[in-house]
């Protein structure tokens, strides 16, 4: 693209037209402004008068300059100027856009997409075929080169993967590249990998390689570990540089099940340190709820670390039967305590005291009987997911629990006594353990040779015994049995928890068996033996941006795969579960570190910053229009036409510039505050200036009357624009109906309906009672029907003689205005309103009528001018003055009715009213 001073031009040849400007200058200079043609009878007196000077038959230089500038900006505008146009050499031949597509890309993914988009746009201009590939998912087979603009459409679908490229897959792909020649644009995520160098070498044999890389460091969060003094959170960064403080937040569900931030801690990278560590100490209850840690503000799977059982400290209740004498090593719980201590919280006590703490596991070591009162709560607790772990012992052997019938708190029926093997008084050798069967939770654990069982409790054989045995001795007798109850389980070790009956508690197998039973939790580093032979399914999966993605359709993953290391294709980072256990697969391992990618000197490494192309065409054309507008004004001024047109100009300027200011001058709030500061009556402006001024004067007159006679002291009447003004501040809206009135918009009708429902009153005055009535429909009446059609108006009736309006302040039976028509319509009384004998009016405790419709032109009767004089005559002579007085009284009644509601409708006032009525 042709460019001058950073501004490129889409159609540079148009700029040649600029050369024609001087010619234009000469042309314009010679042509004076066109004269005004004016009809003027006095022209005869002008004949023979010569002009003093002849200067203006040439266009003045400033007008010329204005026009030249306008034309120049038109030319430049149509030449398509573009600021920051990319002026790179586009190159030729196929282009491969290679994206790392890892989690480290995610924080800046949009910028990468923009950059790729820009590259595709350039390629499209140069008609280069382009292919797009992610290293985390290298294409299979040939590189699919296609048209750049087609590819650009698919670009929004491109997402990074939450894992690292697999070196093996990359090697395979690079080795099988069939294309001979292509250039490569490598959009790197900025992290160093061993596989990069080899791939770069292969790509460079095919064509030039350009690298694009972000200059921001990559941050990642390592899995949190549980230490003695709390949870240790550590983060790494790719570029050790200045001191930097990141915030790590811990998220989890609160007691109401809503995920929220549970804790946050600042993590400070020291200068030139690539790793930073901070310890977070939290109450156990809070800590158990943490489901993930995140570096705040970084959208990347690497900045998210899911927590699994490793962090979860199970609460284990240890129950021991009765008092015990003897050394500590002989305690039934000693070995359990040792095994569980590093990873669990233990509580001790009696069973009834422990249950309310809702422990994860209750260990009953050689406790034979559970009292009947405790049995039910314990069973409920198991059904809710508790694990009851029982160990045999002398007491259990001696009791008759679960002999005849299976005790619900034991997995199997037991034989009385138990057996001792390999003792001094017995035959045979102590037994070893049989390898674990595949359906056992212990499958995959290796059985040490030196574990010997010398005594055990025997299970009563039965049809269901086999499925309950999860570990057995070499002779097939059960060692561990399990029964599932509800969501929980009861597990019985048929040996003691101490080394009295077997050496099992002394071996490492004991700990692992406890882990497999989810009694204890696994230490943070996953041990392959623990995972071997299991299948895990994803509960929670993360995408590269660190957000939770749908995990339901992911296939199961073998434990070996999890044990092998980080996530990869088919195994996104997430939380995987197998049975009771949960394992978190995080992008960043516990000992991972990040380092910056180093590229050879010979490569171009570009930043990601795309200075966006700004198309200046519109600006130039707008400038030309403005200049031409100025030219119009200047020409008018020059020809003397500006002066008579000044009014028009002012109006136009007003419309163009002051339109916004005007709207501002009467902002809704200000209007509402002004109207609401006092009681003020609104009137709908009809657009007929005369009617509006009469209405205004009428309401002014009514306000004066109210101020003189009542305690209502209204402010000035306010003209209401139904389209924009707040209506709720008016108790009363006076709406004169003229035949030429425009109906309000739908939105305005909405507001009117809201006003009516909110207790407002609209007085419709058709101003035509002198000509309408007796079945005559005037144009005003017809207009009224059209105007009120969308309004939410209840059924109406002629104002009954006992309506509250007849006695709200004055006792009235006529409601004349300037005309004395009889017909005034109000909301109809309820049909069940009955007149009680002796009462002058019915009991109509209903609402204030939302509308009042009449045609008596009340406003004219009320209207007073500035000096307070009546503006219009009413009737004739004294009778007319009486009519005016009645009109005012009607106005007072109307306002009183609006302001006090049907207060005067209350029967309390009956005696006083009867007195005044003289009845």
């Amino acid at each position: 693209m042709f460019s001058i001073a950073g501004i490129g031009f889409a159609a540079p040849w148009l700029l040649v037209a600029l050369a024609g400007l001087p010619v234009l200058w000469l042309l314009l200079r010679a042509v004076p402004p066109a004269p005004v043609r004016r009809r003027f009878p006095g022209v005869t007196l002008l004949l023979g008068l010569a002009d003093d000077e002849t200067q203006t038959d040439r266009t003045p230089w400033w007008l010329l300059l204005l026009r030249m500038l306008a034309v120049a900006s038109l030319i430049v505008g149509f030449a398509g100027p573009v600021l920051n146009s990319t002026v790179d050499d586009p190159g030729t031949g196929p282009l491969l856009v290679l994206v790392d597509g890892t989690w480290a890309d995610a924080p800046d993914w949009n910028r990468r997409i923009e950059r790729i988009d820009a590259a595709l746009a350039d390629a499209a201009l140069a008609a280069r075929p382009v292919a797009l590939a992610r290293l985390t998912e290298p294409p299979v087979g040939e590189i699919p080169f296609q048209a750049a603009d087609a590819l650009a459409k698919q670009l929004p679908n491109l997402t990074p993967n939450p894992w690292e490229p697999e070196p093996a897959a990359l090697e395979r792909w690079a080795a099988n590249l069939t294309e001979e020649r292509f250039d490569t644009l490598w959009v790197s995520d900025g992290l160093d990998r061993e596989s990069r160098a080899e791939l770069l070498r292969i790509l460079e044999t095919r064509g030039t390689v350009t690298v694009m890389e972000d200059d921001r460091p990559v941050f990642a969060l390592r899995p949190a570990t549980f230490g003695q003094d709390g949870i240790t959170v550590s983060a790494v960064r790719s570029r050790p540089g200045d001191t930097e403080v990141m915030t790590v937040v811990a998220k989890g569900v609160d007691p109401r099940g809503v995920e929220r931030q549970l804790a946050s801690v600042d993590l400070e990278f020291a200068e030139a340190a690539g790793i930073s560590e901070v310890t977070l100490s939290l109450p156990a209850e809070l800590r158990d709820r943490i489901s993930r840690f995140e570096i705040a503000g970084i959208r990347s799977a690497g900045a998210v670390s899911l927590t699994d059982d490793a962090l979860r400290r199970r609460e284990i209740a240890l129950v021991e039967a009765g008092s015990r004498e003897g050394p500590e090593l002989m305690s039934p719980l000693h070995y359990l305590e040792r095994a569980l201590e590093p990873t669990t919280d233990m509580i001790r006590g009696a069973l009834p005291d422990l249950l309310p703490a809702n422990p994860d596991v209750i260990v009953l070591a050689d406790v034979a009987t559970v009292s009947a009162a405790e049995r039910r709560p314990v069973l409920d607790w198991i059904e809710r997911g508790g694990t009851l772990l029982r160990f045999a012992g002398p007491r259990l052997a001696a009791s008759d629990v679960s002999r005849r019938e299976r005790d619900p708190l034991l997995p199997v029926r037991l034989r009385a006594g138990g057996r001792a093997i390999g003792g001094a008084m017995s035959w045979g050798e102590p037994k070893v353990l049989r390898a674990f069967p595949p359906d056992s939770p212990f499958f995959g654990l290796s059985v040490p040779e030196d574990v010997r069982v010398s005594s055990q409790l025997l299970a009563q054989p039965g049809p269901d015994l086999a499925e309950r045995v999860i570990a057995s001795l070499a002779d097939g007798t059960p060692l561990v049995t399990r029964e599932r109850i509800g969501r929980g389980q009861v597990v019985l070790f048929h040996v003691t928890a101490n080394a009295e009956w077997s050496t099992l508690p002394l071996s490492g197998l004991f700990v692992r068996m406890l882990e497999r039973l989810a009694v204890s939790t696994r230490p943070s580093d996953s041990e392959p033996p623990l995972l071997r032979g299991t299948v895990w399914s994803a509960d929670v999966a993360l995408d590269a941006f660190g957000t939770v993605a749908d995990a339901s359709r992911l296939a199961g993953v073998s434990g070996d795969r999890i044990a092998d290391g980080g996530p990869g294709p088919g195994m996104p980072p997430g939380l995987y579960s197998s049975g009771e256990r949960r394992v978190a697969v995080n992008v960043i391992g516990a000992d991972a570190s990040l380092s910056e990618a180093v590229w050879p000197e010979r490569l171009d490494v570009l930043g990601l910053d795309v200075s966006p192309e700004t198309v200046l065409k519109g600006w130039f054309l707008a400038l030309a229009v403005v200049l031409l507008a100025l030219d119009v004004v200047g020409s008018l001024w020059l020809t003397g036409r500006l002066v008579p047109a000044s009014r028009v100009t002012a109006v136009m300027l007003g419309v163009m510039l002051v339109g916004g200011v005007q709207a501002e001058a009467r902002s809704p709030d200000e209007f509402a505050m002004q109207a609401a500061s006092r009681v003020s009556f609104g009137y709908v402006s009809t657009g007929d200036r005369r009617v509006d001024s009469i209405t205004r004067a009428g309401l002014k007159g009514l306000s004066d009357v109210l101020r003189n006679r009542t305690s209502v002291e209204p402010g000035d009447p306010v003209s209401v624009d139904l389209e924009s003004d707040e209506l709720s501040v008016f108790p009363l809206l006076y709406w004169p109906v003229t035949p030429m009135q425009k109906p309000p918009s739908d939105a305005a009708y909405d507001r009117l309906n809201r006003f009516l429902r909110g207790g407002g009153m609209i007085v419709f005055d058709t101003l035509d009672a002198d000509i309408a009535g007796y079945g005559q429909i005037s144009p005003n009446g017809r207009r009224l029907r059209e105007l009120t059609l969308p309004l939410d108006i209840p059924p109406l009736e002629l104002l009954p003689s006992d309506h509250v309006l007849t006695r709200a302040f004055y006792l009235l039976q006529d409601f004349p205005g300037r005309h004395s028509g009889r017909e005034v319509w109000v909301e109809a009384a309820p049909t069940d309103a009955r007149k009680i004998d002796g009462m002058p009016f019915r009991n109509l405790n209903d609402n204030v009528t939302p509308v009042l419709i009449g045609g008596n032109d009340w406003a004219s009767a009320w209207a007073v001018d500035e000096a307070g004089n009546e503006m219009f005559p009413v009737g004739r002579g004294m009778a007319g003055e009486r009519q005016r007085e009645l009109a005012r009284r009607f106005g007072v009644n109307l306002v009183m009715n609006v302001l006090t509601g049907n207060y005067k409708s209350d029967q309390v006032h009956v005696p006083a009213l009867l007195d005044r009525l003289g009845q």
Partner: protein
Amino acid sequence: MNARVGLREQAEDLAARLPDLLAEAEHLARTLLLGSHGRRRSGVGDEFWQYRPARAGDEARLVDWRRSARSDVHFVREKEWQAAQSVLIWIDRSRSMEFSSDRDRPTKCDRARLLGLAVSALLIRAGERVALADLGTPPRSSRLQLMSMAEHLSAEGSGVDYGIPEIKVLPPHARALFISDFMGDPEPLREQLARAADRNVRGALLQVLDPVEEVFPYDGRTVFRSMGGTVTHETLKAGDLRERYVDRLSARKAQLEATAEAAGWLYSCHRTSGTAQSALLWIYSALERRR
């Protein structure tokens, strides 16, 4: 069909305008309360002039018996001589009179017609005989005359750019009223006035001007055209001409006044921005002047 509709519309339009003009003129005339003018000498009339002793030759029926009964001689009641005056009115209805500088302001022609009809109504009420000079009808003192004048004035103008006073019948000793803007050639006017002076016709010249014509508020490059388009003048800087135009206009006024003076006429200038009433008052007093 269309032509007929057009004709009817025009006719209705005309019929609607005629009473308007007349009513407005009469309304204007009614604002002036003037007495009937006597001749200050005895003669035929309705008003009492004097009692004089009866002389020989007086008919017996002329004797005022009621006055005579109070003395020994017979008295004759003489009445003031009231002679009706003929007034000829010329209203310039050329194109130049159709000018108005503002939509709300009446054209000069409107104002001239209104003044002419109003003064006619006044004169007819006072018993004078009135005629339009260019109509050629003899002066009459009747409401019918007023109607026909109104009709004639409502019709289209002459179509020429600048009007020339056109007097078809000029009875001696009559009065005349010329209403125009006198923007055209002043020579025919002078001739007419000379002719009128010869026949002892006195009268008044009322120059009706639009305020714009006095102020000349134009500026810039302008081509001025007369209303009929026959005369044009182009200027590059209209503002520079203002002073010279105003000078010329006042010279024209002075010339008119001198011409009127020479013929024993009166001259006044009226602006359409002013009220018609003052002009009417001037016209009436000018025609009243000097028995």
